[in-house]
C-alpha cells in the first residue's frame, strides 16, 4: 500500500503512531481521510492529534499493545466477524493463533490495558465490519521489548478479516525517520546485503564475492544496540569491539541509556563520526569526517511504502566537504580496496543489478514515474513496481499469510515506590530527530528550545506541587535530566512523556538499553520508570540549563544569539 492511499481509507486503525508530530504530511492524509468520511480508531496512551479526531480512542496503558490486539482478535473471532474464506485460502497457522487469543477476552484485556471492554468490542466490530481497513503503526509498537510480536499480531488482525491485497487496506509501518526504509533496503543491517539478501546464504555470498572481487564474511554482524555490551562486557577478545565508525547517527543522544553509551564511546579505541553537523557523539570522536547534507548531494530515498524516490543536489557544498559515498570510496581505497564511482547512478546501477527485487528500479524509471515501489524486477519500462506487496498471494515462500501472536509480556522496568511514574519517549513536531539540523534553524529554535518538556497529567503535577512551565528534575536509577513541566490532560495519570531531541532535557539519560526486542533488537524506548522532582530554586535551575546549553553549544562551535562564534 502507498501513503497516498491513506486518504481513501474507509477505516484507519492508527496504532501507536503519532503522525501529527512525527510526519505531519502523513497526518494530513489521515485528516483528509476523516474529512472524506473514514472511520478512525486510534490506539494510543496519549490523546494525540489522531486520537482527538478518532471515532474510538483506545487509551491503553503503555506496554500492553499485544493484549489489546489479541482482545480485538478475540472479539472478531467470537462474534464470527472473520473472513473465513480468506483465512481458509490465504493463510496458515490459524488454529494456533486462535488458541492464544481465546484467553484474551475484552474483560481480561481490560485488566491489562485499562481500556474498557466495551470499547475494545466496539473498535473490533468497527474494524471487522469496515469494507476495507488500513492499519498504520509507528514507534508506539516498535520501541518495546515486545514489538515484533505486536506487528505480527496486527498482521494477523488484518489477515483474519481479509484486509490485504486491496486498496487502502493492509498494515503499514510508518517508519521513524525518513529513509529508514532506505537504510534497510540498502543493507544497513547486520544480517543482510542490499535487497534483504542474507549474509549467511552461500549463493548470495558467492554472488557478492564475484561482483566485488573479494572474499566476504558469512557471519551476521553486530546490531547497533548490542554495541555497548560488545564494548563494555564482552570478554572474548575476538568479539570485543575496538573501533566504531558512525555516520548519520548520534548514539550519545538517541540511543537508550546514554550514560552507558558515553562509557562505551570512551572505552572504544577508535571512533569515527561522519555527519553534517557537530553532535554529542562527535565529542568522543577521534576523527570527524564532515559530509554533505541532503540538499548537497544526489541519491535515492525509500519511502516507508517501499517507494524509491530520487533526491537531487540543489546546493553546492563547501569545498572541504565530501559526499558520504566519496568518503567511503576514499577510505576503502586507502584501506586497500580500490573503490571508484563516477556518480550515484553508477553505484545505484551496480546495486540494483545485485538485488533481484530492485533490478528494474532504474534512475530513468524513478525519474519518469516519480516513485517506484519495489519489488520491481524488470528493467522494462512497463514494470512500474508493486503497489500491493501481498496481492493475490502473499510474498512468502508458500504464498500464504502466517498467523501469529504471542502472550503479553510486561515491559522490563515497571513503576515502583521509588520511581512511581512510567516514562516514555515521543516525538514533537518542529524538531527533527537529535535536533542537530533543526536546532541550527533559528526559526525552529525560536519556536521551541532547551530544555524541552515532560508531559504529565495535571493531577500528578498537583500532587508534586509543580506548575505548568516549572523546571523539574526527572530521574531514575540510570540517570536524570532537567526539563520543563507540561501539564496536559492529554496524558493519563501516572504516565510521563519526553521528546528525545533535547540536549539538556535529555530523556535518554533515563531510557533502558537492556530490554531489546529479540527479533528486531529495538530497545524499549517507550517504557521505563521515573520520578519527577520539584525544583525549589527555579532561578538556579535556569542558570544551570542556560550554562549547560551555552557550554555544549560552544563546545560544538554553534553561535548563540548575541555571541560570536
Amino acid at each position, binding site marked *: 500500500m502507498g501513503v497516498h492511499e491513506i486518504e481513501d481509507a474507509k477505516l484507519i486503525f492508527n496504532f501507536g503512531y503519532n503522525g*501529527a508530530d512525527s510526519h*505531519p504530511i502523513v497526518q*494530513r492524509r489521515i*485528516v483528509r481521510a476523516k474529512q472524506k468520511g473514514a472511520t478512525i480508531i486510534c490506539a494510543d496512551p496519549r490523546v494525540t492529534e489522531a486520537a*482527538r*479526531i478518532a471515532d474510538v480512542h483506545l487509551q491503553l496503558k503503555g506496554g500492553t499493545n499485544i493484549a489489546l490486539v489479541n482482545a480485538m482478535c478475540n472479539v472478531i473471532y467470537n462474534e464470527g466477524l472473520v473472513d473465513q474464506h480468506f483465512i481458509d485460502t490465504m493463510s496458515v497457522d490459524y488454529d494456533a493463533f486462535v488458541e492464544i487469543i481465546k484467553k484474551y477476552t475484552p474483560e481480561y484485556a481490560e485488566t491489562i490495558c485499562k481500556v474498557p471492554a466495551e470499547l475494545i468490542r466496539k473498535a473490533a466490530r468497527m474494524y471487522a465490519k469496515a469494507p476495507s481497513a488500513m492499519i498504520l503503526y509507528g514507534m508506539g509498537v516498535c520501541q518495546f521489548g515486545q514489538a515484533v510480536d505486536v506487528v505480527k499480531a496486527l498482521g494477523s488482525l488484518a489477515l483474519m478479516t481479509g484486509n490485504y491485497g486491496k486498496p487502502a487496506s493492509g498494515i503499514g509501518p510508518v517508519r521513524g525517520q525518513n529513509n529508514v526504509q532506505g537504510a534497510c533496503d540498502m543493507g544497513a543491517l547486520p544480517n543482510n546485503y542490499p535487497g534483504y539478501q542474507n549474509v549467511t546464504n552461500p549463493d548470495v555470498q558467492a554472488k557478492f564475492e564475484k561482483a566485488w572481487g573479494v572474499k566476504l564474511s558469512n557471519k551476521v554482524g553486530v546490531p547497533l544496540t548490542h554495541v555497548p555490551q560488545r564494548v563494555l562486557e564482552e570478554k572474548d577478545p575476538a568479539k570485543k569491539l575496538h573501533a566504531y565508525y558512525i555516520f548519520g547517527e548520534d548514539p550519545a543522544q538517541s540511543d537508550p541509556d546514554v550514560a552507558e553509551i558515553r562509557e562505551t564511546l570512551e572505552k572504544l579505541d577508535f571512533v569515527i563520526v561522519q555527519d553534517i553537523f557537530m553532535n554529542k557523539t562527535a565529542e568522543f570522536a577521534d576523527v570527524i569526517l564532515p559530509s554533505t547534507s541532503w540538499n548537497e548531494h544526489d541519491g535515492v530515498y525509500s519511502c516507508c511504502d517501499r517507494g524509491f524516490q530520487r533526491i537531487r543536489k540543489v546546493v553546492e557544498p563547501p569545498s572541504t566537504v565530501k559526499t558520504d559515498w566519496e568518503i567511503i570510496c576514499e577510505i576503502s581505497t586507502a584501506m586497500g580496496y580500490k573503490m571508484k564511482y563516477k556518480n550515484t547512478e553508477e553505484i545505484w546501477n551496480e546495486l540494483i543489478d545485485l538485488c533481484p527485487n530492485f533490478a528494474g528500479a532504474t534512475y530513468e524509471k524513478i525519474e519518469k514515474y516519480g516513485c517506484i515501489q519495489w519489488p520491481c524486477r524488470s528493467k522494462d519500462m512497463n514494470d512500474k513496481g508493486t503497489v500491493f506487496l501481498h496481492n493475490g498471494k502473499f510474498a512468502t515462500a508458500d504464498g500464504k499469510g502466517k498467523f501469529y501472536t504471542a502472550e503479553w509480556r510486561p515491559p522490563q522496568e515497571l513503576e515502583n515506590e521509588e520511581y512511581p511514574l512510567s516514562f516514555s519517549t515521543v516525538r514533537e513536531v518542529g524538531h527533527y530527530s537529535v535536533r542537530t539540523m533543526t536546532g541550527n534553524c533559528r526559526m525552529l529554535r525560536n519556536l521551541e528550545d532547551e530544555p524541552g518538556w515532560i508531559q504529565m497529567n495535571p493531577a500528578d503535577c498537583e500532587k508534586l506541587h509543580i506548575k505548568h512551565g516549572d523546571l523539574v528534575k526527572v530521574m531514575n536509577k540510570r540517570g536524570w535530566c532537567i526539563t520543563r513541566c507540561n501539564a496536559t490532560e*492529554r496524558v493519563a495519570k501516572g504516565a510521563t512523556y519526553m521528546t528525545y531531541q533535547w540536549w539538556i532535557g535529555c530523556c535518554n539519560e533515563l531510557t533502558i538499553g537492556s530490554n531489546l526486542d529479540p527479533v528486531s533488537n529495538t530497545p524499549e524506548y517507550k517504557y521505563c520508570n521515573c520520578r519527577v522532582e520539584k525544583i525549589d530554586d527555579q532561578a538556579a535551575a535556569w542558570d544551570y540549563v542556560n550554562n549547560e546549553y551555552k557550554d555544549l553549544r560552544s563546545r560544538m562551535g554553534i553561535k548563540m544569539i548575541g555571541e560570536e562564534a
Partner: protein
Amino acid sequence: MRKFVKGNPDLCIGCRTCMIGCVVEHEGRRIFEIDPDGYDFNPRLHMVKTAKISVPVQCKHCENPACMAACPVNCIKVINDAVVIDTDSCIGCKSCVQACPFGAIDMVSKIGTQQADGSMRVVANKCDLCVGTGNGPACVRVCPTSALTLVDEEKLKEVVCDKRVATANAAKVFADAKEVE
C-alpha cells in the same frame, strides 16, 4: 465586514507551521539568511492544545474591537478592514490585552527598539491579517491541512446562507407534515 482567520480544530494537527509562517511573513523572506539578532520571533497567533482541541487562536478582527476601544493612545486602527496595532505608538499599557476576550493579544519585546532607560520596548502584538503584504494571511497559506480559513463577507454569507437554506428545508418538511395532519 472585517475579515478574519478561523482555525478548524477538526483539521488542525497542532504543527505550528502557521506560527512560523506568521513570523516569516512579518519579518521578511530573507529571515533564514539574516543576523539572528535582527528579527523578532513574535508569532501573532498561538497554538492552543487542550485535551479535546488543537487549534491556533488569533484576533477575530471584531467589528467593534474591545482592544481599540480600550487603547488610551489610539494606536489600534482599522487598516484595509483589518484591526491593526501601530507598534510604533504602542506604550505597552496592556489595556488591549485586558480588553480582548480571546487572548488574541500578547506583549512582545521589539528587537532594535529602546526605552529611555535602555531596556527593550515591549509592545502589544496580534494578527494583522498580513495587511499590506498583498499575499493574504500567511497562516492560511502555509497550513498543511488547510485548517485555517480566511472568512470574509462572502465566505460568511455563504456559510450563513447555507445554514438558512437548510433551516428552511427542514421547516418545509415540518410544515408539509403539519398540513397532512
